[in-house]
């Protein structure tokens, strides 16, 4: 059991249903990843701009123009469940 993270909670957050042996394996992997990050954190980065993107591209815009995609029917056709023009999902409202 790691001190740094709760594998079960992480699995719930990303909606993964892990078997016990998967949990153990992923925990070991995550431990290794975190150890590597720890190593990175020893580096002097005060003068370095954080890298959010690796490509040197910026300011990619589109004009404010409407272009109907007309994909509704083809998407709804493959939806697990639909009701007329709506997507249908399991009841999500929580009882209060």
């Amino acid at each position, binding site marked *: 059991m790691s001190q740094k993270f709760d594998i079960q909670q992480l699995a719930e*957050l990303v*909606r993964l249903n892990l078997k016990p042996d998967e949990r153990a394996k992923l925990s070991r992997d995550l431990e290794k990843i975190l150890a590597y990050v720890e190593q990175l954190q020893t580096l002097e980065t005060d003068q370095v701009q954080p890298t*959010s*993107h690796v*490509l040197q*591209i*910026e*300011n*990619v*815009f*589109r*004009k*404010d*123009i*409407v*272009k*109907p*995609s007309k*994909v*509704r029917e083809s*998407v*709804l056709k493959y939806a697990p*469940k639909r*009701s*007329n*023009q*709506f*997507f*249908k*999902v*399991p*009841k*999500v*409202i*929580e009882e*209060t």
Partner: protein
Amino acid sequence: MNTQYESVIGLEVHVQLKTKSKIFCACSAAFGCEANENTCPVCLGLPGSLPVLNEKVLELAIKVGLALNCRISERIKFDRKNYFYPDLPKAYQISQYDMPVASKGFLVVEIKGDGGVLTEKRIGITRAHLEEDAGKLLHEGIKDGSWVDYNRAGVPLLEIVSEPDLRTPEEAFQYLVSLKAILQYLEVSDCNMEEGSLRCDANVSIRSIGETKLGTKVEIKNMNSFRAVQKALAYEVKRQTKAVESGEKIIQETRLWNESKSETFSMRSKEQAHDYRYFPEPDLVPFSVASEKIETIKKSLPELPKARWDRFKTRYGLSDYDAYVLTSDKILGDYFEACIQEKADPKLTSNWIQSELLALLNAGKIAIGDSPVKAKDLAGLIRLIGNNTVSGKIAKEILPMMFETRKSAETIVKEKGLVQVTDLKVLEEAADRVIRANAKSVSDLKAGKKQALGFLVGQVMKETKGKANPKLINEILTQKLPIQ
């Protein structure tokens, strides 16, 4: 124990920016379309699709940031806010975490005191950031699931977060009024709470007066009007005060406002344990905003409510309060100025809008923009008062008729024969009749009781069915009945 408490309030306002298309795709951002009509692979989160920022969205956000005296970031990036909920098909919302468009601004709010005296209060703006709206879930009357309409998913929103500088529910209300006014003047949003283009969540805690540390805050959601925000806050402050006084601890939680019961209730859902795991959105490149661009937008800003308020006072000679009321709603201010354009007297117009017109509109729950009496027509009525064609009293009867029939004041006056009587002979005859019938008041007036004059003027008005010119009656009566 008699501790005095104060409330500490901060507001989060989501405003839908007025664009034709969505924030990251070319789908229409229009309200009221057929379910899922405005969807595409990008806003449905289909694999292989890529978002691209609508340039108009950033421009509008910068406009708002500047009008709220914010610092505009030179570098902007978007982040993923991860959560599983069917209102967003991607399982994350594209938002901004640590590099918002605007930050560290303020808004000057007018707080109304006794007798309509306005005092200024500066409310800090923490930040304003861009994000995409979520889809709409329908539950009602559906037994075996929920329906989802993604038309709203991807509609551009600007979230404006205030500092916890508000101290009363009334201040929160005034903040919202001032903020909405600015957004309307900027023409960046429809600001329609019913259609969801303006939404507000509130954070509130209480503490003893003199305490500088913040208490445990509660977030309240689900208010559908500014008054509801005020009521929900008032309820919450009372609830928290009662809890603290009876020794309970306030729990940090999200509560929902129930309008029909006028109370807040705890959501008690797993949503409390949110862990959004923000990280930079890899599908969108970063943005840099050139200072020249900011300058250009700054120069293009229209006249804002505060400037218009000052102008109304100096140009039209209106009182501080009247000018404030007329400019706190852009459409109301536009209506007023349209009347002035039609050569109506400014002070008369201000009075007529604020008393008669707004009373009729409020009674019929009609917005000023939908008034059946247009500015041109109200100006017509006010001109008739100004040139003594009708008395103010008759004008008050004409306005509801204009409302009803949508005819001009001139037409109604002609049709009903409501022209003010200025014929001296007719007025003198009426005055004589009144003098004969009211001996007591006549002798009172002659004895120096000036109040009797008002009564006699009223009697002459009655005699002429309100059509007499009160100034002329006054002169006639004073002449006929000199004080001895």
